[in-house]
């Protein structure tokens, strides 16, 4: 479809507005991170002097940011691996097997996503205090399964459904058991879908804040998102914005890189749940 010239111009203008809307605040975060601390409140679009000083400040001893990144990696990684291990089988059953209450089970699993984190948190906080799990990784990983597992079962079910059933059936006619058909046919075919689910689950777990904030009161166990929000300045009012923006860039850029590289798959994953 080739439109007239004014239509083309209008369309590009529209795209520019959308891209600007999405990118401008992020650009501002990046630019603020690269300013020198003494120019921090300078509102020029491009910093007069570029500097890495804010990034050095992020890793300075007081913040313990390296440890926080590691904590985030452990918590989000464990959540993702556990979720996929458990969720893949359930999703396969929901996509392929026919049994009573199938829709009820799927509905139940979807319904748990509407569950507010806080009503899960209060009893678990009390329980974990009693069994002395506060300031442990499992205290953050287990509650995270509550939102990660329904999400991944939901996505994986959608992906498994898209695979042609005939292939599996042909394998079973040729003498494979259901387990073999699953291992040799479904898993390799579903790998892209599983991978997408892994990315989406990891991002959701990485971005988690409420659980990580509540289950931990020791600095060494904080995840990155919590640690950044607690970076301290001289007084409450004097927030170290430059350092926080630099830390924000460090936490966000790897995610954005992954998201851009696997853009198509992620869009497919996000829409598989909602559309169709």
């Amino acid at each position: 479809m080739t439109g007239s010239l004014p239509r083309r111009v209008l369309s590009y203008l529209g795209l520019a507005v959308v891209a600007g809307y999405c990118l401008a605040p992020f650009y501002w975060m990046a630019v603020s991170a690269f300013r020198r601390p003494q120019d921090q409140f300078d509102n020029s679009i491009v910093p007069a002097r570029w500097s890495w000083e804010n990034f050095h400040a992020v890793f300075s001893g007081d913040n313990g940011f390296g440890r926080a990144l590691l904590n985030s990696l452990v918590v989000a990684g464990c959540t993702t691996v556990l979720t996929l291990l458990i969720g893949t089988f359930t999703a396969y059953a929901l996509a392929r097997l026919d049994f009573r209450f199938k829709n009820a089970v799927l509905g139940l699993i979807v319904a748990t996503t509407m569950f507010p984190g806080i009503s899960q948190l209060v009893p678990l906080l009390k329980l974990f205090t009693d069994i002395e799990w506060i300031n442990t990784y499992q205290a953050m990983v287990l509650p995270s399964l509550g939102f990660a597992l329904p999400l991944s079962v939901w996505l994986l079910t959608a992906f498994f459904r898209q695979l042609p059933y005939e292939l599996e059936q042909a394998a079973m006619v040729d003498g494979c058991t259901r387990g073999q058909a699953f291992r040799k046919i479904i898993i390799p075919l579903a790998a892209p879908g599983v991978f997408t689910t892994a990315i989406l689950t990891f991002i959701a777990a990485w971005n988690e804040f409420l659980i990580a904030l509540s289950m931990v009161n020791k600095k060494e166990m904080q995840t990155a998102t919590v640690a950044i929000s607690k970076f301290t300045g001289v007084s409450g009012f004097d927030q170290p914005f430059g350092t926080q923006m630099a830390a924000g860039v460090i936490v966000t850029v790897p995610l954005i890189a992954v998201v851009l590289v696997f853009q198509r798959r992620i869009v497919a994953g996000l829409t598989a749940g909602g559309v169709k």
Partner: protein
Amino acid sequence: MTTTYDGTPSAADTAAADGARPRRRDVQGTKRLAALLLSPTLLVLALVIGYPVLAGFRESLYARGEGLDANGFVVQGERFVGLDNYTAIFHGDRGDAFWNAFGNTTFFTVTTVVLETVIGVAMALIMQQAFRGRGFVRASILVPWAIPTAISGLLWRWIFQADGAANAVLRHQVLWTADGFQAKMAVVIAEVWKTSPFIGLLVLAGLQMIPRDVYEAARVDGAGPVQQFWRITLPLVKPALLVAVLFRMLDVLRMFDLPAVLIGVNQKSVETLTMIAWFEASNLRYGSAAAYATILFLYIALIAYLFVKLLGADIIGEARQHTKRPRRNRPVKGKRKKVTA
């Protein structure tokens, strides 16, 4: 016919050709396999969600000993107080705080979801019309989505500083992060920025599945662009949009990170129900925290129920499509009933 797996004729034929006895055994085996495969997930969900719901409700009926003793230590021991935690929430100063948080939560939900939907649909329409550069814009749309909410809270706090970027652009001094209506607006703006691209993405996927000849037919019949939008585009993306809006609503109703980081906890103007419950819990008043959480849970369940019932958001529509019956377009009768149908 329980052996029809996905309704395709080939599956039905082979199953029928197997003969009666193996088929029965297969059904038994399928049942056992299904139970085996489902149980880990259901077990985990029962532990991390089912147990907390029940324990939280029980907790909300209990209270700790009367606060602190003379030395400032929390007095040990719990006692059953019935619905006292609930009645306390609705009375006096705490009643005001509760209704304030309830109002804020509702206000945020309505304003952000309406704005997100309008902006998201507009974004999707712009991207749909694009000749080139759609890939770039789709990539940039994922950026706000990928930024952690807590980080975006900090980012917007920085933008909304008294001498920050927002005021420089507006050429007007607004104290965004002070307690007041402007703080609400700051939260709404930040939330809409982060999530409307997500709606845009889902709607775009819905738009791309509308066959082009529908529009051509409409154009031949003399429908203008506005009519095409209201009569064709909107009704056809409605199922996708409804599900997206429902998930967004449920998400905003439990909002915590953004107002907590952007403005701060215990600020009247932006305190949501989750924040008030969290504040109670962090002060070890578990009983009243659990009562707030239970109220929020019921509120969310009510909204979800009404949304599904009144607007017929078809959350697991795809699942039903795959079980024998063709998709019907009648309003659904509530969630639980619908899924067992």
